[in-house]
């Protein structure tokens, strides 16, 4: 039975075939069985590990004739199985949620097929035993991300958002491929890589570490590559929750944790990771304060929290990074899905200036959003976010005193943007900003509907948008107890990632950070925008510049593309004759 665990990534695939046949009639109604099976297999594997037995690897030798025999390996160790269980749990909740959210969409079969592609690729990425196998899943989740962002392709802006995601992902894929190419012969698995790094026998270790980290930055929207993630919010909300906050963007952190032994022996790259993470964390927080759009505000929050995980990776605390990945997946998926409940109830309105006072009419979404927000700011003892953030803060303080202090201060920033979004959505009066200057002008998906007719009536939320989120809410509150007290997670990861010594449930540092976060949360109420904010340019200057450069090159070469077949044939015949003549006349 445990032999099946390495094959878990195949489970969502039958539902694609079913969807192609148009079954079941309510699209995707049984698709959740795929991720549920993944969750079951992952828990089975973890139980097996807990009994002190291993879970067998899967090797497909010679699956492509030009590859060596070790090319395709899945290796379900503690880290992979923990991540797999997380992916299975979050995906199952979001699949059920999407049944309600996509209720009125005609293309539900296509939507769930894309989601299945994503879950299968993500599971393969997680289970991969070496970089080659990981790359297959890595490229697969990038493709799924593109397909799902552009799912509502007829709406303006979605296709360019998908193209941005695809372009940045291509940077990451290329970096990962280069890392595989320069990896020395004989290093066929992550275990070999860790052993070689620890022994100091890994050649080109700085270059390999740099390439792997660039790949992780691209996937996790860090540093200059951040911009695709806020744009990706053009996709449906279940996609934002599952791919662009909880699992896919966390794949970069997962890769960083996987190759943390290489980072440990490459101090320069570690410093780069630390500074990029720290910068992105602050930048994401500040940008979140400037957003008018609920989903984009949450997206910048993801950018910021991922930055915090990279800070943990940079100071050599991969366990803390992974722990925060787990709790973040729960509370950020919860925030996105409950925000989606609000957006659904308002017929697609995403601007917080057109919300407000919704806690009475949407009590379910309100409660879930509040739980997610409190976990995000790290309310001590009660929430999971506090436990994992505390571990990062402790590690940072241990590493460098100033870094710990900076991170604790950032807790206030986190609190402020979480509070701002929460109070703007659920408190105050309805549509408090819609009558300000420019209120109707700022664009969003629902802009066309909203303009002219003022605010929408709130229609009653369906149970599908609330009940599937209850497991996520329990996760956002209780995932902290996976590690403190008891150390369940560090025992599961033993042998893969070194865990720090156990910390108590409440630390002084945690209380201080929690208090600052709460203060920021209530201060966030003062920052609720009185009127719509004109959106800043979404693309950084260097992206625009490279886009302009390609446009220029395209203009220059356009003269060659006349569209006249005879011209093309002439060029072909002349070129072929020249080539043959060259070969024949060569001495």
């Amino acid at each position, binding site marked *: 039975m445990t032999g099946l665990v390495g094959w878990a990534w195949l489970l969502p695939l039958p539902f694609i075939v079913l969807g192609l046949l148009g079954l079941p009639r309510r699209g995707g109604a049984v698709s959740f069985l795929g991720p549920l099976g993944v969750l079951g297999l992952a828990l089975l594997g973890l139980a097996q590990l807990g009994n002190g037995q291993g879970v067998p690897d899967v090797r497909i030798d010679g699956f492509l004739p030009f590859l060596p025999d070790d090319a395709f390996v899945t290796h379900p160790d503690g880290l992979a199985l923990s991540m797999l269980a997380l992916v299975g749990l979050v995906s199952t909740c979001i699949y059920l949620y999407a049944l309600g959210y996509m209720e009125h969409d005609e293309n539900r079969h296509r939507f769930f097929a894309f989601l299945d592609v994503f879950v299968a690729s993500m599971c393969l990425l997680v289970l991969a035993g070496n970089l080659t196998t990981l790359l297959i899943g890595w490229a697969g989740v990038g493709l799924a991300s593109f397909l799902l962002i552009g799912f509502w392709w007829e709406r303006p802006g979605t296709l360019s958002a998908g193209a941005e995601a695809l372009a940045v992902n291509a940077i990451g894929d290329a970096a990962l491929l280069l890392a595989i190419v320069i990896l020395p012969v004989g290093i066929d698995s992550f275990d070999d890589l860790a052993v070689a790094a620890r022994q100091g026998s890994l050649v080109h270790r700085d270059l390999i570490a740099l390439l792997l980290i660039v790949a992780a930055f691209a996937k996790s929207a860090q540093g200059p590559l951040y911009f695709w993630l806020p744009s990706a919010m053009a996709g449906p909300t279940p996609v934002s929750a599952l791919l662009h906050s909880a699992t896919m963007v966390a794949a970069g952190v997962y890769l960083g944790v996987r190759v943390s032994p290489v980072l440990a022996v490459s101090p320069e790259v570690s410093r780069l990771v630390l500074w990029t993470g720290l910068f992105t964390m602050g930048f994401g927080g500040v940008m979140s304060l400037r957003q008018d759009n609920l989903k984009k505000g949450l997206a910048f929050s993801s950018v910021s929290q991922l930055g915090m995980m990279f800070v943990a990776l940079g100071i050599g605390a991969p366990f803390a990074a992974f722990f925060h990945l787990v709790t973040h997946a729960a509370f950020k998926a919860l925030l996105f899905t409950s925000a989606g409940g609000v957006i659904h109830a308002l017929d697609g309105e995403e601007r917080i200036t057109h919300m407000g006072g919704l806690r009475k009419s949407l009590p379910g979404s309100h409660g879930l959003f509040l739980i997610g927000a409190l976990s995000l700011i790290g309310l001590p003892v009660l929430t999971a976010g506090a436990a994992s953030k505390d571990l990062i803060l402790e590690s940072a303080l241990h590493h460098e005193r100033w870094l710990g202090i900076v991170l604790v201060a950032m807790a206030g920033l986190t609190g402020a943007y979480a509070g701002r979004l929460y109070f703007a959505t659920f408190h105050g009066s309805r549509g408090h900003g819609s009558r300000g200057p420019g209120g109707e002008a700022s664009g969003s998906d629902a802009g066309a509907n909203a303009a002219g007719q003022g605010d929408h009536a709130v229609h009653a939320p369906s149970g599908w948008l609330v009940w599937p989120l209850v497991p996520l809410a329990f996760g956002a509150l209780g995932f902290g107890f996976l590690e403190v007290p008891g150390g369940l997670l560090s025992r599961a990861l033993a042998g893969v990632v070194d865990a720090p010594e156990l910390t108590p449930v409440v630390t002084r540092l945690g209380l201080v950070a929690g208090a600052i976060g709460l203060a920021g949360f209530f201060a966030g109420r003062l920052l609720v925008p009185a009127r719509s904010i004109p959106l800043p340019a979404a693309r950084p200057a260097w992206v625009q510049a490279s886009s302009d450069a390609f446009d220029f090159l395209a203009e220059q070469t356009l003269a060659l*593309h*006349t*569209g*006249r*077949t*005879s011209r093309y*044939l*002439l060029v072909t*015949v002349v070129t072929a004759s020249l080539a043959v003549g060259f070969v024949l006349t060569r001495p």
Partner: protein
Amino acid sequence: MTPISLLLVTAVVVFTLGAAALVQRRNPMSLLMGAELMLSASILVLVASSRVHGSASSQGAALLALVLGAAEAVIGLGLALAVFRNRARVDLDDASEVRR
């Protein structure tokens, strides 16, 4: 002139004629015929080489190439017919909407 060089010269002439038709003509039928001519010329070279080497293997290859040419003609005619049905005119340079 030996029979072999006669064969080769014929092949070159036929090939050039086919290439010229390919470049000059605009009617897809003529283009297709030009391509077929070029293919036949290559097959002629194959047959000639069979004579030179005294083995039948290149004659087998020639038979395969003939089948390939037939398949190509079927597809090409099908495409030409589809274009003709849509436009009621068969000028290939007319059909350049794909450019923009």
